[in-house]
C-alpha cells in the first residue's frame, strides 16, 4: 500500500492543472462567481473544450472515446476539476445513457449516438420516474405498443432534469403489461422533437426550473431506437443505477464546497470574532471534513477493488448515502453561516435577475440551494432504497 503519486502521476496532475488554467472559459468563471444560473450554452462551452481535447469521457473504454486513464488518473482529474471549481458536465449522456449504449447497444446505435454525446451536440435527458412511481421504479405505467416498425408510446414522466434543453431522452417504458414489476420493461431512446412529446416545467422550492414533466401522447419511436432486448430494459436500468450511484458521491465537489464554507466562516462575524472561531461552527466544519475524508477513502478503496476486476457493486449505495448526506450538510452549514441574510429571496421564477443581490455575494443562494439540495437524498434511488439495497445485496437480510 502507498498513498503517494508516482512521478508519472505527478506529471499528469501538472498537465491537467495547466490545461484547466489555460482553457477554462473566463466568462463561465464570472457567471459562477456571481452565483447566477448557468445557461445551456454555459454548460456546453466547457463540454466542447473537453471534447476537443479528448478528455470528455475519462470513464469510457478507449475504443468508444475514453481516455484510457488509470483509476488514479481519473481520481486526479476529478480532484483538479473540483479544486479549480469547474462546472460539471451533464451526466445524462456521458455517465448514463452513453455507458448503456456502448455496453448494450447495437453497432448502429453506437455509431449513431456516441459521437453526439461526446461532442455535446446531443443534449440528453432521463425518462425514468413517473408520478405514481418514485423510488418504486419497476411499477412504471408508461406504455409502448408495437405498431409495425415503431413503438407507440403513451404516458407521463416526471423529475426529468434539464428536459427543457434536451434533444434526446432515454426512457423506461412498459412493453408487456402482463409481466409483473421489473419484467416487461424496455429501454427506448426518444427524439424529444417527435410529435406528441410535451415538456412542462416543475418549479422547485428554491425557485429553480431544473426538472420537468414529460408527457408522451402517441409518440412514435422506431424500434431500432430500443436498446437491448424487448422486455429486458431493466437490465440496462440496473446497470445505469449502479453507475449513477458512484458519481453521486461527489467527493471532489464537496471538498470544494467545504472550502467555500470555510471562506464564508472567516468573513462572517459572530459577535466580536469571525464565525470560524465559534467552536461549534468550527466543529461542524471539521466533522464535515473528516466525514468527507472517510467517504473519499471508501471510494478509493472501492476504485481499487474495481481496478482489480470487480465492477461497481451494491457497496456503491454507501457512496450515494454518505455523499448525498454530506452535500446536504454543506448547504445546511452555508445557510447557517449567512445568518439573517439567508432570508432575502431575490429571484424570479425561472428568469434571471440582474439587480445586485441583498447581503454578501455568497448569501443570496444559500437558502434556495439548501432547499434544492434536499433532492440528493431522494433522487437516484432514495437513501431509504439504498439502505434496502445494502441490507439485501450486501448483508443478505
Amino acid at each position, binding site marked *: 500500500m502507498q498513498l503517494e503519486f508516482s512521478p508519472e502521476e505527478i506529471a499528469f496532475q501538472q498537465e491537467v492543472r495547466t490545461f484547466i488554467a489555460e482553457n477554462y472559459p473566463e466568462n463561465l468563471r464570472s457567471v459562477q462567481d456571481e452565483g447566477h444560473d448557468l445557461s445551456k450554452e454555459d454548460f456546453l462551452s466547457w463540454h466542447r473544450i473537453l471534447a476537443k481535447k479528448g478528455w470528455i469521457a475519462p470513464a469510457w473504454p478507449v475504443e468508444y472515446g475514453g481516455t484510457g486513464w488509470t483509476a488514479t488518473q481519473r481520481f486526479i482529474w476529478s480532484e483538479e476539476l473540483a479544486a479549480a471549481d469547474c462546472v460539471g458536465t451533464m451526466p445524462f449522456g456521458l455517465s448514463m445513457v452513453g455507458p448503456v449504449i456502448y455496453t448494450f447497444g447495437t453497432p448502429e446505435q453506437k455509431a449513431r449516438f456516441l459521437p453526439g454525446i461526446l461532442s455535446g451536440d446531443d443534449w440528453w435527458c432521463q425518462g425514468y420516474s413517473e408520478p*405514481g412511481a418514485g*423510488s418504486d421504479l419497476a411499477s412504471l405505467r408508461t406504455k409502448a405498443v408495437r405498431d409495425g416498425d415503431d413503438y407507440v408510446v403513451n404516458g407521463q414522466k416526471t423529475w426529468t432534469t434539464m428536459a427543457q434543453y434536451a434533444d434526446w431522452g432515454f426512457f423506461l417504458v412498459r412493453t408487456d403489461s402482463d409481466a409483473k414489476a421489473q419484467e416487461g420493461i424496455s429501454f427506448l431512446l426518444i427524439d424529444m422533437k417527435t410529435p406528441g412529446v410535451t415538456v412542462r416545467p416543475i418549479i422547485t*422550492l428554491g425557485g429553480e426550473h431544473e426538472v420537468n414533466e414529460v408527457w408522451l401522447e402517441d409518440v412514435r419511436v422506431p424500434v431500432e431506437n430500443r436498446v437491448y432486448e424487448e422486455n429486458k430494459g431493466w437490465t440496462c436500468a440496473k446497470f445505469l443505477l449502479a453507475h449513477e450511484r458512484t458519481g453521486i458521491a461527489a467527493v471532489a465537489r464537496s471538498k470544494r464546497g467545504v472550502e467555500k464554507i470555510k471562506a464564508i466562516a472567516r468573513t462572517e462575524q459572530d459577535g*466580536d470574532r469571525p464565525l470560524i472561531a465559534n467552536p461549534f461552527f468550527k466543529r461542524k466544519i471539521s466533522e464535515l471534513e473528516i466525514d468527507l475524508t472517510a467517504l473519499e477513502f471508501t471510494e478509493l478503496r472501492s476504485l481499487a477493488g474495481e481496478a482489480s476486476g470487480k465492477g461497481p457493486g451494491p457497496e456503491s449505495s454507501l457512496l450515494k448515502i454518505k455523499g448525498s448526506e454530506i452535500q446536504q450538510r454543506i448547504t445546511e452549514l452555508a445557510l447557517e453561516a449567512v*445568518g439573517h441574510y439567508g432570508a*432575502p429571496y*431575490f429571484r424570479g421564477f425561472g428568469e434571471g435577475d440582474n439587480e445586485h443581490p441583498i447581503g454578501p455575494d455568497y448569501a443570496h443562494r444559500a437558502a434556495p440551494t439548501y*432547499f434544492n439540495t*434536499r433532492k440528493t437524498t431522494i433522487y437516484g434511488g432514495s437513501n*431509504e432504497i439504498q439502505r434496502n439495497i445494502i441490507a439485501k445485496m450486501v448483508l443478505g437480510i
Partner: protein
Amino acid sequence: MDFSYTETQDMIRETLSRFLADTYDFDSRNKMIASDSGRDPGIWKALAQDLGMLGAAFSEEHGGLGGGHLENALIMEELGKVIAIEPYLQTVVLGGGALKAVGGAIADAVIPEIIGGNVIIAFAYAEPQGRYNLANIRTTAKKDGAGYVLNGHKGVVYAAPWATHLLVSARTGGSGSEANGVSLFLIDANTAGIVRRDYPTVDGFQASEVYFENVAIPGDALLGDEGAGLPLIERIVDEATVAVCAEACGVTAKLHSGTLEYARQRNQFGQPISRFQVLQHRMVDMFMDVEQSKSMTTMATLKLDLPAAERMAAVSACKAKVSRAAKLVGQNAIQTHGGIGITQELAIGHFFKRATMIESQFGSADHHYERFERLTLAD
C-alpha cells in the same frame, strides 16, 4: 400549577382557527404573496375589526381583551398552522410588547391604533455585522436639540414594506457590543431620510434593507431611558422568540400531519408507504419533537415574567429545542414526501421553508445553547 386554558383563550383559538381556515388556504396564500404588495391588507383589517384578535394581548384599559403572553402564543400557533404572513409578531408581540413595557403617553396613543389595525410596526434591529447579538449596533442616534438624528443600516427588516412605524435600536452612546448606550425608538416609517430596499423573503414575507440617512426624529420617539434600552430590547426579543416558537408548534404540527396524510395515500411497492417501519418510526420521531416543542413553548411562555436571568435561560432552552425540532420535522417531512416535497406545487414545501427560517430567527440553536450555558452552567 395549572395547565388549562381559560374559556376566553379557547374562544380566541376557535374563532381564529375558523377564520384562517376560510381565508388562508394554500391558493389564497399564494395569491397574496404574488400580489403587488405581497399581502392582503383585508385580512389584517378583519383580524382587528371583525375578530378583535389584535387586542387579545392588550389590557382592557387600552381597549384589549386583557390577555398577554399566552394569548400571543396561541395566536402565533394558529398563524403557524396556515403559515400566515401577517405582521402579528412584529406589530403586536414586538411593537406592542415594547409599548406595554414602557407605558405612558406613547403607549396610550399607539396601542389602540394597533388594536384597531391602523398601525403596522416593523422591528429594525439586526445589522449586517451583528448576527444575533442584540447589542452589536452601529446605527447611531445623535442628540440634536429636543430630538435625535439617525444614521445607519438595518438588515432584513421583516414587514418593513408594510409598516407605518419602525421600532429601531440605535446607539446614543458606547460602541461595539457594549450594553450601555443602546436606545430604542418608535418612529414614523415615512420620516424623511429613510431609504428602503424591499424584497420578498424565502418564506413568503416582505422585508427590507433600511438605511437611515440623517433621519431627524422627535425626542418622544425614545422608548424608556436613553442609553438604557438593551434590557427592554432583550425582553421584547425574548417574548418574540417564544412567540416564534409557538408559531413553530403550528408549523411543525402541520408538517407532521401533512406527512402522515401523504404517507397513508402514497403507494410504493404495493402498499401505502405509511406501512414501512422506517417511515413509521421517523413519523414517531417527528411526533415526539412536535410534542416536546409544545411542552417547551408552554414552559417558556409561563416563565416570560420571571426575573431576566431565569426568563432568558427558559427562552433559550425553548428556542434551542424548537430550532432543532423545526429542522428535524421539516427535513423529514420533505424526505418522506420525496420529489413532490421539493416543488412549489405542494403546501408542504412552503411549511418547510418557514420552518427553516424559524430555525435561526432571533438566534440559531447554537446561539441559544450558548446563552443558556452562560446563564446556568458556570465553570
